[in-house]
């Protein structure tokens, strides 16, 4: 059923501008926007305004935004707060929807790491199958000439 907005008497404004105090008071319904969303939206305003949250977390949350600069448009500030509420509400819903996928991706990534760790654990460091513990000696270098200094030392030792 379509709503006839011309005849329906609905006060859509959820904020009051207090020009004297250079602030705007916004009423938020916590049944529509959970506290987490309200905090997040308020957090984004910290650089533009002084923020105070009050009211009843079950009935009505009041957010006061006090402009940091006198030139700020208070009505616009309140409207952009409302938009921020919508953005964060969408973000929270999407995050909840995709949480399973994200968890699966992390588990898959951890699974690969665990398998690689298991492979590494199979190797016995005492047996040294890769020959890492064996010290390098010039004789083991194939195709390289032995430096003269080493050769002469060896010769003198033989004598």
């Amino acid at each position, binding site marked *: 059923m379509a709503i006839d907005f011309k005849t329906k008497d609905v006060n859509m404004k959820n904020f009051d501008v207090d020009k004297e105090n250079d602030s705007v*008071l916004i009423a938020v319904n916590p049944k529509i926007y959970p*506290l*987490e969303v309200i*905090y*997040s939206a*308020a*957090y984004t305003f*910290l650089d533009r305004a*002084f*923020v*105070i*949250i*009050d*009211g*009843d*977390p079950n009935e009505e*949350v*009041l957010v*006061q935004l*006090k402009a*940091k600069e006198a030139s700020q448009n208070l009505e616009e500030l309140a409207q952009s707060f409302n938009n921020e509420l919508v953005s964060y509400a969408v973000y929270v819903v999407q995050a909840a929807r995709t949480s399973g996928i994200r968890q699966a991706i992390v588990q898959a990534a951890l699974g690969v790491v665990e398998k690689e760790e298991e492979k590494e654990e199979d190797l016995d460091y005492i047996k040294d199958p890769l020959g890492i513990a064996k010290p390098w000696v010039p004789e083991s270098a194939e195709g390289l000439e032995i430096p003269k200094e080493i050769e002469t030392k060896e010769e003198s030792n033989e004598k």
Partner: protein
Amino acid sequence: MKSKVEVKNDEIVILVNTLFYPKDNVINTADKFNDFFWIQIEDGENNFLSLTLKPKSNEIRLDTAGYEFMNHLLSDVKDDMGD
């Protein structure tokens, strides 16, 4: 709106609603302001905490410092919530 930030006799008086700003966060934020203010925290009516901030120097702007405190407090609460 019961919460308030006001300047009285060269001191800042702040009423904080603990339903939105837990006591631990209030104390944590007060600790950050310790270098600049003498701070007193008391139990207020219902769920409110009353804070009195007395500046240690004359160079501090009292008209905005109380609101700055509230912004830091919100930031602290949000940090505890995570993403």
